[in-house]
């Protein structure tokens, strides 16, 4: 069932976060306040604890439970954003039907749109959206073009990698890094990095 996929994805995401502690933490220490790793780790760990109860719920309820739990666990800037993603995904059309590539592309697109409407940022603002907006777009276009799941996954990782790299040489308009002005240039955005490692892990593990 699709909820199993969610649980496996959550597991992958959590492992990816743990495995990239030093990198993510270092980036937020460089251009933020140093807690991004702790925040998303706290979120991911808590969701893992939920896994037991979630196995027999439909995806809409599992995603909503995840959203509410993340909302009350992460805090900071990333909490509402990440939580908005899951809340929108839980309401995405056909989420409880068997998952097809179209359906995945749709709920990812809905989720990313929710992050955008909560945080007001866009591509080029040096945030997680520099990874997520291109990712959602690539996924949708790939699905529309009828690409194979394996290709979609490879391209997703590729797109995410380009997105995270693109945050390096720009100033930030949102998040704490915005306070840095020019001094943010040369540093990758921590939220973009954590999004990238999660995307990569999920695409590789599933």
């Amino acid at each position, binding site marked *: 069932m699709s909820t199993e996929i969610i649980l496996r994805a959550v597991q992958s995401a959590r492992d990816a976060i743990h495995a990239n502690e030093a990198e993510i*933490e270092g980036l937020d*220490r460089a251009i*933020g*306040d*140093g*807690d991004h*790793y*702790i*925040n998303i780790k*706290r979120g991911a760990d808590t969701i893992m604890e939920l896994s037991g109860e979630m196995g027999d719920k439909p995806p809409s309820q599992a995603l909503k439970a995840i959203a509410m739990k993340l*909302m*009350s*666990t*992460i*805090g*900071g*800037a*990333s*909490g*509402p*954003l990440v*939580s908005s993603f899951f809340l929108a995904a839980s309401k995405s059309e056909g989420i409880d039907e068997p998952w097809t590539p179209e359906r995945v592309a749709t709920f990812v697109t809905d989720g990313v749109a929710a992050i955008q409407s*909560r*945080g*007001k940022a866009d591509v080029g*603002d040096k945030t997680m959206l520099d990874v997520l907006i291109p990712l959602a777009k690539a996924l949708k276009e790939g699905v529309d073009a009828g690409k194979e799941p394996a290709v979609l996954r490879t391209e997703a990782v590729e797109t995410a990698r380009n997105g995270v790299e693109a945050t390096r040489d720009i*100033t*930030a*308009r*949102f*998040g*704490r890094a*915005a*306070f*840095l*002005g020019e*001094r943010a240039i040369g540093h990758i955005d921590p939220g973009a990095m954590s999004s990238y490692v999660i995307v990569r892990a999920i695409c590789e593990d599933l």
Partner: protein
Amino acid sequence: MKKLINTPETVLDQSLAGFGRAHGDLVSVFFSPRYLTRTKKKEGKVAIISGGGSGHEPLHAGFVGVGMLDAACPGEVFTSPTPDQMLAAAEAVDAGAGVLFLIKNYAGDIMNFEMAMEMFEGESASIIVNDDVAVESSTHSQGRRGVAGAIAVEKIIGAAAEKGYDLAAVKALGDRVNSSAATIGVALTSCTVPAAGKPTFEIGDTEIEFGVGVHGEPGRRREVLRPVDEIVTEIMGVIKEEISPSGDVIVIVNGFGGTPLMELYLVFDRVAQLCDDEGLTIARSLVGNYFTSLEMQGCSITIVNADDEMLSLWDAPARTAAINWG
């Protein structure tokens, strides 16, 4: 990392528990979700709720009590609290005259409070404090950070609510105090978030961060430590440009947690000299550690261009752990 703690995970709850034991006459502490309320609700009064990441003590928990806040929501260290906390606090302290959320201008705080306000069913309004003039607001869309000016806003609107101002009036006053306030901070050392275990930023033995944020965010520039009179003169110059103070001012010299009071009073002496030179009257002042950044060394200077209403509300009674006068 050297701290008087057990584990990073238990810092916040154990500290809140201790705060609750020490000030049980003033506040009630709740843990799941985490919030504090003043012990006695006053029916018909506008309820004021603030909150933010922990690590800035005594703010905000130390400002809960008669004449200031009705509730505070402490987040993890340097991390915004979550909407469920604000929601629970709002439901607990709403006394029929609406709830005012006092938010400091950080992306995380704004978004989490916004979600809480969307969920809260009572009447509510919000004030966004953004007094940190170290950051030139033109360069980014988040705008200025909310720093020690929050102390003045909380004191003054707390007194106004206690006096019976309605929700709209409390909000208007709070916005006015906020726009009359300007703050700049300077850091000599970093702070260390317990869960991170390492200093938030690196800083050389002779360097300071001019314009630092209260989470150790960078400011205007990294520079070599100078005699403090020069630093204060520059800070006062920037503040003057931003809010053109005249007549009566409230001065807050706020320590970041690791700087001795001796130095804070020394800084205040310089501020006072410069106010004399400018023909400003220091009508009220507050010197001490009120909005800290864990163990960071350094301080901020806040000037509030004050009118008579603000001054009389500043003087009004407050009974909180950190501010107790009038």
